[in-house]
């Protein structure tokens, strides 16, 4: 589970999210990415390292330069991660709904009872 926790930590940081948004539109070199931020270059490098380590970014060598690509597949997995939690509540609410339907009056009174 460590891997996944890392992904969550990775996207919890606003700068890293901004990097992801940036790289999602086009692949970029570290220098090009850094030029979009006021943050010091080594800080950006650190962010890139974290994003790469948890597979949200992929590195690709093109000539002398390394380009960073956005890994959409990994991001999808992050989104899927919330699904068990959602399903848990969905199941619960489905149950609530079916139980409470038994309390519905057989005919509509048209009046709200306060």
């Amino acid at each position, binding site marked *: *589970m460590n891997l*996944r926790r890392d992904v*969550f930590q990775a*996207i*919890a*940081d*606003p700068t890293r*999210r901004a990097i992801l948004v940036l790289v999602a539109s086009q692949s970029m070199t570290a220098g090009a990415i850094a030029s979009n931020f006021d943050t010091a270059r080594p800080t950006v490098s650190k962010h890139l390292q974290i994003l790469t380590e948890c597979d949200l970014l992929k590195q690709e060598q093109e000539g002398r330069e390394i380009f960073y690509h956005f890994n959409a597949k990994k991001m999808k*997995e992050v989104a*899927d*991660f*919330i*699904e*068990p*939690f*959602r*399903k*848990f*509540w*969905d*199941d*619960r*609410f489905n*149950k*609530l*709904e079916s*139980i*409470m*339907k038994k*309390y*519905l009056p057989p005919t*509509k009174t048209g009046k*709200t*009872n306060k």
Partner: protein
Amino acid sequence: MERKTKIDAEEGKQEILITREFDLPVALLFKAYVEAEIVEQWMGTKVLKLESKKHGGYQFETTDPHGNKYRFSGVIHDFGQDQKITRTFEFENMGLGVQLEFLEFKKLTEDTSSLGMRVIYESVAQRDQQLKMPFSQGLNMAHNRLQQVVSKLNNRS
């Protein structure tokens, strides 16, 4: 017709918003939260205490398939008939912290209603932990699903 439960959990925030629409008049939806014997049915839990009123409190107990008992409880800070419940929630002795819950019940039509549940955690870390592990009775279930998700990932790579 979208009638699914929605979860909004923005990254880096310490809150979760759970929303759901029901084919139930709002009074019945609210009743499901107020009457102990009904709560027991849909939450699959034993109600040890449920004082559905301002300054009331509640304590539920659930038993997992292995016979382990878990208790969760809280106090009801505000109570508005068919409208809202503001309460705290704590999974006892689990070190998961206390959460604050704002339950908002809304009438959509005579026969339909919605529930908005805003849950605020002590920290972002605690929220994320909860997201990964739905509490108590859902724990095992969620864990199994988690396993499925993880094994799916493993197969893919």
